[in-house]
């Protein structure tokens, strides 16, 4: 495992955040954050609420702008682009090119309630990627098989359980074939007995694909299973990061130890 992680970091990072700063009013959420992620790496972001974990994902999805700092995805700057020999602020066209590489799953699923499952899965591939409706349907069927919901193809979100909704949301993001997937507390809105089915889909995805995954989670066991690297954040800074075995058994920073003790007690 450690060898694998080291090898991954030798290649060019798929994602690079440098001195990223973000605040909401007076509240500093990310404090000169640096983070590099290798292709196919699985990162678990852990930390107390308000530590900036979700903000990292929202920034990478371009749902939020940064105050300062640099973000690169596959070597390309997100918020600026080269225009006539100079770096200028990103326009919508450039941002859409960047967004093609990234997908995101939300805590509240955010399925489109007025569309059935099939259309939730095909709308963006047809409109954005220009797939024919047959191609998009084929892709949707494969994904429904992956998440085990083939029989729900005609159902509307309101007819699904929370766990099923979240699995459909994962399939919907996958239908766009992103290079990087961002999972923002994807089980936090679920009843405890529905968490397992969603985590299993993530485990399968981690096993069978080479998508780069950034996962914000409160499930430490799951983080330990799935992650190549665990990043512990507090107050908008990375306090400690490392291999899951090391982070969970012998964290070196006292704050990491305190945090892990408090969550593992629950």
């Amino acid at each position: 495992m450690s060898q694998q992680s080291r090898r991954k970091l030798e290649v060019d990072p798929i994602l690079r955040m440098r001195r990223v700063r973000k605040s909401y009013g007076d509240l500093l959420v990310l404090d000169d954050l640096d983070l590099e992620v290798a292709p196919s790496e699985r990162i678990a972001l852990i930390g107390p609420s308000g530590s900036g974990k979700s903000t990292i994902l929202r920034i990478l999805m371009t749902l939020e702008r940064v105050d300062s700092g640099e973000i690169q995805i596959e070597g390309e700057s997100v918020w600026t682009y080269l225009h006539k020999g100079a770096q200028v602020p990103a326009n919508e066209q450039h941002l859409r090119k960047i967004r093609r590489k990234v997908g995101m799953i939300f805590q509240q699923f955010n399925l489109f309630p007025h569309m059935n499952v099939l259309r939730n899965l095909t709308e963006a591939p047809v409109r954005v990627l220009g797939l024919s409706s047959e191609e998009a349907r084929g892709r949707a069927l494969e994904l429904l098989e992956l998440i085990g919901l083939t029989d729900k193809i005609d159902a509307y979100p309101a007819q699904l359980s929370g766990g099923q909704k979240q699995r459909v949301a994962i399939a919907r993001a996958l239908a766009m074939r992103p290079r990087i997937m961002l999972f923002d507390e994807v089980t936090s809105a679920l009843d405890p007995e529905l968490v397992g089915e969603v985590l299993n889909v993530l485990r399968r995805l981690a096993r069978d694909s080479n998508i780069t995954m950034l996962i914000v989670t409160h499930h430490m066991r799951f983080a330990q299973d799935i992650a190549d690297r665990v990043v512990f954040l507090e107050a908008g800074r990375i306090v400690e990061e490392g291999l899951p075995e090391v982070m969970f058994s012998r964290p070196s920073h006292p704050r990491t130890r305190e945090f892990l003790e408090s969550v593992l007690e629950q």
Partner: protein
Amino acid sequence: MSFDWNLVLEILPALLSAFLVTVQASLLGMAVALLLGLVWALLRRSGNRLVAWSATWTIEFIRSTPLLVQVYFLFYVLPSFGLSWSPLVTGVIALGLHYSAYTAEVYRTGIDNLPKGQWEAAMALNLGRFDTYRSVVLPQAIPPMIPALGNYLVAIFKETPVLAAITVNELLQTAKLIGADSFRYLEPLTVVGILFLIASLLSARLVEKLEARFVPTE
């Protein structure tokens, strides 16, 4: 002065065909208001400050000036700039323009009420601005607005007599002409009142039905 039922029967066909003109002006005016209101609402949400600001002030201007003044302006002033339409077309445009300022507000509220997560999901799926509105935002935002929009249709309908000022042969204008011919205003105006009453009651029922159908009870 007694109420002359024979006169009522005599003038009823003319008033009924005028009633059709009224209905026609209302529906066409509403169609214009629906389209134009959406345009204002979308312009107000434009990323370009100048565009958004202009739309806001256009709406404010339209709302703050009387419909009758707008009708006169379109009918008597625009032709001197080479723009002239028939009275009915002018009336439809005036009603539509005036009420677009109100429907714009309905659209705005409806669009604002859509949960933020829907916009974020659309962005995460890389849908463009147009696709986001067409596929995600409007199909969800419009159904709850239908009763409010229906109320504006009723309001437009009741405002159509304003068009009498520019010689559209709607109900009131026709009743006035009958009155001028027969020297009797009681019967034609009574019939006009009753026709408006019936139509208003019917459309109020319709709006109630729409409300039951489209507004979720919580």
